[in-house]
């Protein structure tokens, strides 16, 4: 096992010193879907000291075509994604310390997990969360690497607080979601292309080789054979509310008030209650309505044409609709 990283140490920019630094660092990956699992696998194989993975979701069959680490059995068992990922990652590298949290990321829920984090990798699937993350990391002075993909396209950009333009400098506001995995699909190479850029940038930051960082935003379309970089030097806005002279971090409040949301590519609505759900108690109640399955982490049941899944932390997923109204109706019919 001594020469486990030998080929990585031979890569001159990393070397023996770089490998040691990688082993001392702590990365948080927000999201454990396509981008999250592939970044996690790379970093754990590369010898990251500590990895925190945060995700609110569980494994489904429709994830398997693009999400690494997960198997059919994980989908059959509806294992929470971070739990399934952690178990695979530990088989790959038993030296890595992996913290897995089944958690819906808000400014409030995320903050305690950002203590002593060197770098955050964006593996979320929506701009609401990214703008919240952008504000939070500007405030806490933690670098992060934006990544996103849909269809055969993707983007990546490395954000250093107090130095580079932030996400809010580049986009005036969270754009209305145009293309999602649900509307235009996704192929796995688009995921890996983004991840290749994110992991490389992460390695540069881990070994403190900031001169090699990519200063540009990358965008590509693998099916159309297109690759372009955008120089964003001029995008830094001194009046930016998220990273400017008088930053007010506007998205730190916004996130906290969102109580329902449509999940990207899922035909699913999430409803987030302000209190935890007592699963056993709820299961007892739901038995009267239909067959309830539970695995200790969640309860699930089929109801009308929907599948409804309850998590202990207060969230409920209504599968089979992208209407918030319909979802709320179902929810209140079941939970009362």
């Amino acid at each position, binding site marked *: 096992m001594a020469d486990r990283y030998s080929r990585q140490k031979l890569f001159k920019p990393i070397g023996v010193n770089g490998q040691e630094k990688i082993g001392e660092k702590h990365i948080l990956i927000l*999201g454990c*879907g*396509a*981008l*999250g699992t592939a970044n996690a696998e790379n970093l754990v194989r590369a010898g990251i000291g500590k990895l925190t993975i945060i995700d609110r979701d569980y494994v489904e069959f429709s994830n398997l075509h693009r999400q690494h680490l997960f198997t059919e059995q994980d989908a059959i068992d509806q294992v929470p994604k971070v739990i399934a990922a952690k178990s695979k990652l530990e088989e790959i590298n038993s030296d890595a310390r992996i913290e897995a949290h089944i958690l819906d990321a808000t400014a409030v829920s995320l903050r305690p997990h950002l203590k002593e984090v060197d770098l955050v990798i*964006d*593996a*979320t*699937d*929506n*701009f609401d969360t*990214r703008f919240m993350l952008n504000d939070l990391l500007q405030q806490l002075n933690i670098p992060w690497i934006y*990544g*996103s*993909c*849909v*269809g055969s*396209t*993707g*983007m990546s950009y490395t954000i250093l607080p107090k130095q580079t*333009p932030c996400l809010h400098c*580049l*986009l005036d506001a969270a*754009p*209305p*979601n*145009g*293309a*999602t*995995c649900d509307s*235009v699909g*996704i192929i796995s190479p688009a995921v890996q292309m983004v991840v290749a850029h994110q992991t490389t940038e992460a390695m540069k930051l881990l070994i403190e080789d900031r001169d090699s960082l990519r200063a540009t*935003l990358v*965008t590509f*379309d693998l099916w*159309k054979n*297109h690759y*372009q*970089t*955008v*120089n*964003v*030097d*001029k*995008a830094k806005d001194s009046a930016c509310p998220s990273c400017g002279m008088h930053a007010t971090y506007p998205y730190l409040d916004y996130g906290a008030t969102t109580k329902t949301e449509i999940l*990207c*590519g899922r035909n699913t609505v999430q409803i987030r209650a302000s209190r935890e759900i007592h699963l056993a108690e709820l299961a007892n109640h739901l038995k009267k309505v239909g067959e309830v399955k539970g695995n200790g982490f969640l309860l699930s049941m089929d109801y009308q044409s929907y599948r409804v899944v309850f998590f202990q932390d207060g969230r409920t997923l209504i599968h089979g609709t992208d209407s918030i109204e319909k979802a709320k109706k179902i929810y209140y019919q079941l939970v009362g």
Partner: protein
Amino acid sequence: MITILLFAHLQETVGKDRIELPIEQLTVMELKTALKQTYPLLELDHVMTAVNEEFARDNSKVTAGDIVAFIPPVSGG
């Protein structure tokens, strides 16, 4: 002549990935307005713009010979 590159779903809306316009000079905003008169490109209000591979704002100038790329932000992951 100004060359306009369309990315991602903008290509499908317009039916091609490149438009050439015989214009000498205008701003990014004026270019967006002109395009919206010809094509159903409502999304242009929410795209990132690059002129010759450099980030550009709505008030940035575009001159004959420039290549303008409209890049819709991607949200999936």
